[in-house]
């Protein structure tokens, strides 16, 4: 049977089990779109801007652990993907981006809509390919998916010139490689046994240990192992922004997020610990602040699948290169039970003394919105956020119970990510409630994807925390630039309710918590139309605690009304209980996770 390169590409996607492609057509991908015309088993989702396609593939991947796929034409289509690809790269998210390219005969001639997209994306892809012969397509796609999902996951780009998509070759169906063997790419997944035993001994010897868990625990599907390790040893866990969900945040051993806007008790615990067990985390500057004053008295165990992360920022005493889940399973064979001690009491004391607080005075605060979303969805919703103050409040107050429930742009901090990522997550998990929490700034960066959500009848709920300013930049200008508020005023924004209606979505505007509850309840009743809730929140609020950039826990700034708010009667919200259902969630084996890798 003779097939075109474009048809073979679709065959390759079938072999990889791809069910959704997020894309946008154009000249150089016409053969691919012609092949899609007859394709009924792979759903193509038509976006409104290629950046949206890349973020949707990313959100899809985060929600499932499967490789997300996006498709764009050459030139501007391809360059519009770049932000989304860079975002996936910084957070180690497996996506395959397919781009059209001008004919091989005119590459390098500045042809219409030509861009050197493989050259442009070298720094932001794990690997990329320019295919010059349709016969190379099966091997190329097999390698692309293999590289994207194995080892430290990441984005891979495949550039397909127009003539390669048109080229017809014989296809018997067995050209697709059964097994990928790349001699120069063999990630280490099993940790070194001797180092693992040393780690177990260090854990047994430590008096003030802390588990510091990052996105690697999510991508390797290690929630059960992380939870088991914490429970057996009574070691408290702090997670990074991307590690949220690696242990239920309702678990009594979970301290929430650490770092710049992390909980004060997590930061105090890390600062004072004598053993820091870093699991799939990379000592990001938003976590460490001043590196040489980060956990200054601690011995460090660093478990990571990427050898280059070991010693990049902090030199560990015990380095373990390997897949987090695989390493923890071995580690658990050597770790003995240890009781909770004085250290746990000390952390509990910090927790009581420095709780997260906000004014529960009936005013509309983003923190209250987040807590209400959590309670109204029984903490089961998939939460996608944008970037800024609302993201940090969501990180503090959204108590993630399961992995892949929390979808946020961490490393790159991409405003505009939230809505398309939520759309990708909703396609991946159609039967679950997906919420997008955005800001009035972020929302306006990818608003056009409301049309995508609307056309496909997604029951998304988009909550805009509207403080009429670029809140996080405003906060820094207030705190570090003498209140010189330069270009952060967004008083002049579109009417978000009318905008929602223009996109055939439902729009609500709320100004009090009561109104928000009512609107959210109405939104929850929707099953086939997106709802946008424009929440006019109290303006001028700042996110606390805050460790200013490059500083230490000693410079941590607390909420100015901490004392007063801590003693308020409802300071300790309901919903913190850790019940049987939470335990079950920790047992869920994440079907698509990237941890099930064979040792090469």
């Amino acid at each position, binding site marked *: 049977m003779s097939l075109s390169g474009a048809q073979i590409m679709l065959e390759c996607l079938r072999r990889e089990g791809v069910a959704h492609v997020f894309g946008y057509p154009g000249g150089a991908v016409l053969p691919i779109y012609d092949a899609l015309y007859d394709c009924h088993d792979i759903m193509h989702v038509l976006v409104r801007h290629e950046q949206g396609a890349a973020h949707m593939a990313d959100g899809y991947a985060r929600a499932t652990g499967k490789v997300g796929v996006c498709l764009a034409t050459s030139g501007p289509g391809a360059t519009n993907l770049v932000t989304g690809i860079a975002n996936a790269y910084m957070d180690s998210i497996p996506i395959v981006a397919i781009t059209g390219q001008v004919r091989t005969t005119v590459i390098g001639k500045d042809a219409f809509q030509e861009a050197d997209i*493989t*050259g442009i994306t*070298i*720094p932001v892809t*794990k*690997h990329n390919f*320019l295919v010059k012969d349709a016969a190379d397509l099966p091997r190329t796609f097999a390698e692309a998916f293999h*590289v994207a999902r194995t080892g430290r996951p990441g984005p891979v780009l495949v550039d397909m010139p127009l003539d390669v998509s048109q080229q017809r070759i014989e296809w018997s169906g067995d050209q697709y490689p059964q097994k990928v063997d*790349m*001699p*120069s*790419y063999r990630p280490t997944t099993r940790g070194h046994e001797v180092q693992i035993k040393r780690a177990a001994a260090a854990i047994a010897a430590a008096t003030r240990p802390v588990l510091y868990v990052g996105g690697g625990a999510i991508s390797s599907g290690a929630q059960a192992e992380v939870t088991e390790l914490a429970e057996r040893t009574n070691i408290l866990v702090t997670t990074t922004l991307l590690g949220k969900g690696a242990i239920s945040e309702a678990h009594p051993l979970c301290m929430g997020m650490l770092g710049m806007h992390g909980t004060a008790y997590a930061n105090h615990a890390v600062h004072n610990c004598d053993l820091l067990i870093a699991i799939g985390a990379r000592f990001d500057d938003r976590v460490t602040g001043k590196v040489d004053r980060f956990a200054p008295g601690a011995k460090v165990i660093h478990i990571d699948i*990427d*050898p*280059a992360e*070991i*010693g*990049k920022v902090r*030199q560990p005493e015990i380095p373990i290169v390997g897949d987090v889940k695989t390493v923890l399973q071995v580690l658990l064979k050597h770790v003995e039970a240890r009781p909770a001690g004085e250290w746990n009491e000390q952390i509990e004391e910090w927790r009581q003394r420095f709780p997260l607080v906000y004014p529960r005075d009936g005013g509309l605060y983003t923190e209250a919105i987040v807590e209400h979303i959590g309670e109204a969805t029984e903490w089961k919703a998939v939460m996608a956020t944008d970037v800024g103050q609302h993201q940090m409040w969501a990180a503090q107050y959204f108590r993630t119970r399961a992995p892949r429930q929390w979808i946020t742009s961490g490393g790159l901090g991409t405003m505009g990510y939230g809505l398309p990522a939520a759309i990708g997550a909703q396609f991946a998990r159609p039967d679950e409630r997906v919420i997008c929490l955005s800001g009035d700034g972020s929302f306006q960066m990818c608003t056009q994807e409301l049309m995508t959500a609307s056309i496909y009848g997604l029951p998304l709920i988009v909550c805009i925390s509207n403080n009429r300013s670029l809140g996080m930049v405003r906060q820094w200008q207030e705190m570090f630039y003498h209140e010189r508020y330069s270009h952060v005023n967004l008083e002049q924004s579109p009417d978000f309710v009318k905008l929602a209606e223009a996109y055939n979505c439902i729009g609500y505007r709320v100004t009090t918590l009561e109104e928000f509850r009512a609107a959210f309840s109405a939104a929850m009743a929707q099953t086939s139309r997106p709802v946008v809730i424009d929440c006019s929140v109290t303006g001028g609020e700042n996110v606390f605690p805050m460790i200013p950039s490059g500083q230490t826990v000693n410079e941590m700034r607390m909420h100015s009304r901490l004392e007063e708010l801590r003693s308020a009667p409802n300071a300790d919200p309901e919903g913190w209980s850790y019940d049987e259902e939470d335990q079950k969630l920790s047992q869920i084996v994440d079907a698509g996770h990237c941890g099930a890798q064979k040792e090469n």
Partner: protein
Amino acid sequence: MALTLSGPSSVQGQQHIITVLVENHPGVLARVSGLFARRGYNIESLTVSITENPDVSRMTIVVGGDELVLEQITKQLNKLIEVMRVVDYTEFAAVERELALIKVNAEPRDRAEIMQIVEVFRARIIDMGERAFIIEVTGGTDKIDKIRDLLAPHGIREMVRTGVIAMARGSRTA
């Protein structure tokens, strides 16, 4: 092909000669050199050529930095899919060579002295014009620096260097 991306010997710490075996694909050089620029590593020189295996290219990179920097460079290079092997030649005995062509002013009254320098350094005059010689010299970086310095008073019109290549002594291979 050689690239000298930064000035000589201004970097902190030790110099290392590393050999990188890569798959012989178009664009690999861009991936490797881009990595150095992007992560702020200092390249003194970079040379790339084919090897005994036509599918494999060999890069020899002279890079400045301490042990920790070199460890990061090695790890980051190994993350590139097309990189097959990275070897640091500072760790064991290796021969290193560089070739330079130096076009030096050669007025009749200076020729004898220049030819004497050439002889002492076991270099060769490969082109003799009315006013200038081209001198070919091979050796370690220090030797080439030295002959350059000695020829400098005569006026060096042009100089090109290949950058260092290196090979392990004995039967050991990269």
